């Protein structure tokens, strides 16, 4: 039993004065009797016991003390926690994200604890109650619709699987909100470790009861693994591994790097609490490969101790320059050494050949086409919906460039002097990389998964070829096209994302990291998609046309790796207060105490006036 107003117990100090007053107020009425001879004997018998005899015998004082005690207790507002009596519907959101897989000191995972909590809640469900279970990670699914059937609810709890997905609770809240219409008075409960960002404005019609699961736990995690082929040597693979210690004490362990399951390197790492560490590994790889980094450390969460990446085979870089030959242009690629340059006049352009090249550069061609690869237009414009050109502007000044874009990396356009440039309006979705006050000077857009980079002005009628930014720009373009290619290959993704396969490769199946095979779902557009990337590791995609590729799914989510529980996470800007869900009903006893006190008061009145027992 707890007290809401424990300071009210200070009124207990009234009791001694009451007892004192009781003795003082004993102005006994005098009764004349013929003799006190016999009474004295009686009193002697009584006084044998103790001076408290009088108290013991005084029912009135006892009643008054009891009433006073009850009133004081009632003022202190005692309450007891009673097992949940739902008395209505309740929607329970249960977190199945990666962080719920953390092992608590008891040896049970957080999800296991949440399930136990849920089971005890289900055990308290009566026929008047209804319970709905929704599991959530970065998406939300109804595990069990409203029911009072305990067996169904227990079965649904048993079926809850741990996922390695990140957490986004907004979807679960929106789902609950939509379901709340069918049960307007339903309560909403969340069983989670609180590792979720504020879902933003929700306008939930009900109060959220949040039960925190788990404790603060130590964790050393791989927070990122980046793989790229060196720009200098396309056969050299550079691996960047980032680690972070999310615990409160320093941790150490062995980090092992495997390439195609062969141990490539091993390093002992030690991190102070809260610190991050980056490590670089290198390997030569002429073909595609599979890199796995394993962190051999004993911490609470195993999911972030492994990371996988698929290394794509090196792409041979080749450009086709269509139009007038230009020394500067050819020199830029020749200097790089690893780019094959094919210059040909406009009339020799064959659309079929172009697909083999990394990019086609249209150098001031009157009627440039859109080749089925990446295109760079220098001083000319393709026929593209939404792309508009206007009058020439003389000596346009450079106003701004987007230096966050990969293509503009390491480039300073401030020294660029342009003789003239036509006004250019990019199509919808296009991005201006360089702008004058009136128009975009360099734009980037995409058509059919290929990038189109349009330089509106004639670079050779400017000082650009003489500036260092010119070769860097072109190389950046090629790198950007490579990245786009890797993204298009969809080889490395975060858990929870979807794996796609184009329609032209035919029906595809997915081989899960645990070896099971699942067919991919066909979308309305004909392509195939697999949305069940719940586990970490390497997925295999096999298409009907016999092509197969691998996809690596990683966690890389600091929110999930940070295993400190959130006692009061924020929802819509307000802090949720953690409650004990299955026992969260605080039954106040004040009313009962007052009722008893009132009853005793009546009894005292009767006793005072009738002296039934005195």
């Amino acid at each position: 039993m707890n007290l809401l107003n424990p300071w009210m117990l200070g009124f207990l100090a009234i009791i001694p004065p009451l007892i004192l007053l009781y003795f003082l107020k004993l102005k006994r009425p005098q009764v004349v009797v013929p003799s006190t001879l016999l009474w004295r004997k009686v009193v002697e018998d009584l006084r044998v016991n103790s001076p408290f005899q009088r108290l013991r015998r005084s029912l009135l004082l006892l009643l008054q003390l009891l009433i006073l005690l009850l009133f004081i207790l009632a003022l202190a507002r005692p309450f007891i926690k009673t097992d949940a009596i739902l008395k209505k519907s309740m929607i329970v959101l249960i977190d199945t994200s990666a962080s719920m897989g953390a092992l608590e000191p008891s040896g049970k995972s957080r999800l296991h604890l949440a399930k136990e909590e849920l089971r005890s809640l289900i055990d308290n469900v009566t026929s008047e109650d209804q319970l709905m279970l929704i599991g959530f990670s970065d998406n939300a699914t109804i595990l069990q619709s409203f029911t009072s059937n305990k067996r169904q609810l227990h079965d649904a709890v048993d079926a809850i699987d741990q996922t390695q997905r990140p957490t986004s609770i907004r979807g679960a809240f929106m789902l609950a909100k939509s379901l709340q219409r069918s049960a307007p008075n339903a309560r909403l409960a969340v069983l989670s470790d609180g590792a979720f960002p504020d879902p933003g404005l929700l306008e939930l019609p009900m109060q959220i009861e949040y039960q925190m699961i788990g404790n603060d736990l130590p964790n050393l995690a791989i927070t990122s693994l980046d793989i790229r082929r060196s720009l200098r040597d396309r056969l050299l693979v550079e691996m960047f591994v980032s680690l972070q210690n999310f615990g409160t004490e320093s941790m150490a362990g062995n980090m092992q790097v495997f390439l195609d399951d062969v141990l490539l390197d091993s390093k002992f790492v030690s991190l102070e609490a809260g610190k991050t560490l980056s490590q670089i590994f290198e390997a030569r790889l002429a073909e595609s490969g599979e890199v796995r980094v394993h962190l051999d450390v004993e911490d609470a969460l195993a999911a972030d101790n492994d990371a996988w990446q698929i290394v794509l085979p090196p792409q041979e870089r080749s450009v086709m320059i269509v139009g007038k030959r230009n020394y500067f242009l050819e020199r830029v690629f020749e200097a790089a050494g690893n780019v094959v340059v094919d210059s040909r006049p406009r009339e020799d352009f064959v659309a079929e050949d172009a697909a083999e090249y990394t990019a086609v550069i249209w150098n001031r061609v009157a009627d440039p086409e859109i080749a089925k690869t990446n295109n760079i237009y220098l001083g000319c414009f393709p026929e593209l919906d939404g792309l508009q050109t206007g009058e020439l502007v003389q000596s346009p000044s450079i106003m701004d460039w987007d230096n966050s874009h990969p293509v503009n990396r390491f480039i300073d356009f401030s020294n660029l002097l342009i003789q003239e440039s036509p006004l250019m309006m990019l199509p919808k979705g296009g991005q201006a990389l360089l702008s004058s006050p009136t128009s975009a000077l360099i734009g980037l857009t995409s058509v059919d998964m290929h990038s189109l980079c349009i330089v509106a002005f004639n670079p050779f009628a400017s000082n650009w070829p003489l500036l260092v930014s010119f070769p860097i720009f072109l190389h950046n373009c090629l790198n950007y096209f490579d990245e786009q290619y890797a993204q298009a290959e969809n080889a490395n993704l975060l858990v929870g994302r979807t794996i796609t396969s184009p329609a032209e490769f035919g029906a595809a199946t997915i081989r899960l990291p645990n070896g099971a095979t699942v067919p991919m779902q066909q979308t309305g557009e004909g392509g195939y998609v697999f949305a069940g990337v719940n586990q970490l590791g390497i997925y295999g995609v096999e298409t009907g046309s016999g092509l197969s590729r691998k996809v690596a799914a990683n966690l890389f989510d600091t929110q999930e790796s940070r295993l400190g529980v959130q006692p009061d996470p924020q929802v819509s800007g307000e802090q949720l207060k953690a409650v004990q869900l299955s026992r969260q009903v605080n039954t106040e006893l004040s009313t009962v105490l007052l009722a008893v006190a009132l009853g005793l008061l009546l009894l005292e009145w009767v006793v005072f006036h009738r002296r039934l027992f005195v």
Partner: protein
Amino acid sequence: MAATLIDADLMRRFEQLHMLSRKMAASRIKGERRSRRRGSGNDFADYRNYVSGDDLRFLDWKVYARLERLFLKLFLEEENLNVHILVDVSRSMDYGEPNKLHYAKQAAAALGYITMCGMDNLTVRAFGDKLLGTFGPKRGKANAPACFDFLNALEVAEETSLERTLRSFSVGTRGKGLVVLISDFYDKDGYEQALRYLFGRQFEVFVIHLLSPEELAPELQGDVRLVDCEMADSTDVSMGRGVLELYKRSLDSFCGGLRRFILARGGIYLLTSTALPFDKLVLDLLARRGLVR
């Protein structure tokens, strides 16, 4: 005056009663009761040899004629009964509803009237901490009004001292007789020694222990201060069922002790409540106990 104690109807009924004594009458005064003493009565008792100095009137001349020896005829003496009624008029008797003192006066009046009608000697003595007033000895119905007046005129005394009273009574009373003691026996010094004086004088002792209903079953409640009406003494008692039970037990033991003490010495003990109509006491209870017939 007499009407306040006994009404005329009762007086007529009492006239038919007699005081009974289990012992032979022991008065020096000639009366209507047969005595164990040989003397000048009408009933022949025995013969004895004549010795010089004997009254020649009682010589049996017929026997002398036959036997030529002098025999004296002895007759049973006829004496009257001395009845002493001792009435406790201490302050403790002035209590209860009906009032114990009034009740005691009524009882004394009734017994006195019966005594006087039976031509026995009646002495009525009131006492508190000492003997206060005396009526008698008188006999004959004609003295009844005076007796009633005496009783009516009795006033409440202060304390009770049975021992002092009964000692002076025993010492100051000649002869034997019947002593009717009407009291509540509330004496802080106890009753034992006092009664021993009576029994020591060979009195036939009849004790009427008079208590009011308030004393037999008190209806006190709550926390009270009990004040003794005789002594400046008080006792604080918080009444409860247990307390009242203890009181009753104490009262029982007190009455039982008194009763045993009296019976063991050949006396008669009668505990009565003032709630009992006093005519019933006389006509019924006292008759049954053998005091009147």
